[in-house]
């Protein structure tokens, strides 16, 4: 169950946020661009990533990162420049910067406090809170006619663990699509728009490129991906230090070659939700 309280923002907070959306969006988008540029510059110089995955136990200590760097023939001193990252973390970082630039850090602090309950940090909760501030929730699914086949693919690629009936990487595409169509609900989130980002195949609507900042989730929050003006800028929490794609940018286009959110061999993101600050 979500830990997001109902109506957690006052009318004046919602109004203040509404007036500052352009500032929030511009700063958050700039932050994403800056982090990605920083990542590329570091990687191009050193051949390892400045941004390491937060879930990698072997990278969580300096000694661990030094060992990894040395195994790759890199200077140990790079460990002191390295920054932990994860998909939800990048989304939070850009929004924190955006709200701060707008003078609305008190609102962000309320959001952060809810995300931090039980150290859950769920992308679905983040979207719920943004929705309370006036953001719109769009269901995305490029080809619902494939839902059943995608579900079968998910279950074949990632069988459930022993004693479990569900694997968190699964999209549950058919079930969640039915819920969206029948009830306008995706997991616990009321969907505001169930058409604009549905059935677009490999040609997302051109208007999506006008969205100045967005926060997406795939597969009920298994993956979180921020982005701006049609491009996803996403972070990953389990990849190797020498992976250039610990951070990556690609057009939002889940089924297209080179599109995003990016897939791995077993993580094929094919439906979810995107929060946008206003309709497009």
């Amino acid at each position, binding site marked *: 169950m979500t830990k997001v309280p109902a109506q957690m923002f006052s009318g004046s907070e919602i109004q203040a946020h509404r007036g500052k959306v352009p500032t929030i969006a511009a700063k958050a988008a700039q932050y994403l661009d800056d*982090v990605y540029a920083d990542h590329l510059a570091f990687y191009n110089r050193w051949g390892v990533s400045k941004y390491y995955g*937060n*879930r990698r136990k072997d990278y*969580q*200590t*300096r000694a661990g*990162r030094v060992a990894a760097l040395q195994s790759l023939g890199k200077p140990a001193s790079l*460990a*002191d*420049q*390295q*920054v*932990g990252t*994860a*998909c*939800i*973390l990048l989304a*939070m*970082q850009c929004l*924190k910067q955006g709200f701060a630039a707008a003078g609305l850090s008190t609102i962000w602090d309320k959001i*952060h406090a809810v995300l*931090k309950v039980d*150290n*859950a*940090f*769920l*992308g679905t909760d983040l979207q719920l809170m943004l929705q309370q501030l006036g953001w719109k929730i769009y269901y995305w699914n490029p080809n619902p006619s494939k839902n059943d086949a995608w*579900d079968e693919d998910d*279950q074949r690629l990632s069988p459930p663990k022993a004693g*479990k*009936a*569900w*694997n*968190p*990487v*699964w999209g*549950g595409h058919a*079930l*969640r699509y*039915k*819920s969206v169509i*029948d*009830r306008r*609900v*995706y*997991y*616990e989130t009321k969907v505001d728009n169930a058409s604009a980002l549905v059935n677009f195949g490999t040609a997302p609507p051109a208007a999506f490129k006008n969205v100045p900042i967005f926060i997406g989730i795939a597969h*009920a*929050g*298994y*993956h*979180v991906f921020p982005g701006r003006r049609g491009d996803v800028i996403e972070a990953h*929490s389990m990849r190797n230090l020498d992976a250039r794609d610990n951070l990556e940018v690609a057009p939002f286009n889940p089924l297209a070659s080179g599109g995003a959110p990016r897939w791995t061999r077993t993580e094929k993101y094919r439906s979810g939700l995107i929060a946008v600050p206003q309709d497009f």
Partner: protein
Amino acid sequence: MDSSAFDQGVAAATDGLPASANPYADGTAEHEHWIDGYHSVVDHPEDIEERGDVLAPTKAASPENLSG
């Protein structure tokens, strides 16, 4: 658990600071708690797994089981 050190680690992570920003001396409990906080801001598949159980295909034949 030193909650302040843990929370400081969380704050450093959300500020995008490097892991070397840990202000506590190596080998101290606070140092470890800061590291734990710094690396706590991640996706949590174990939590998501619980929500997945609600939607398990074997349970989803009836509409009341859809989407939680």
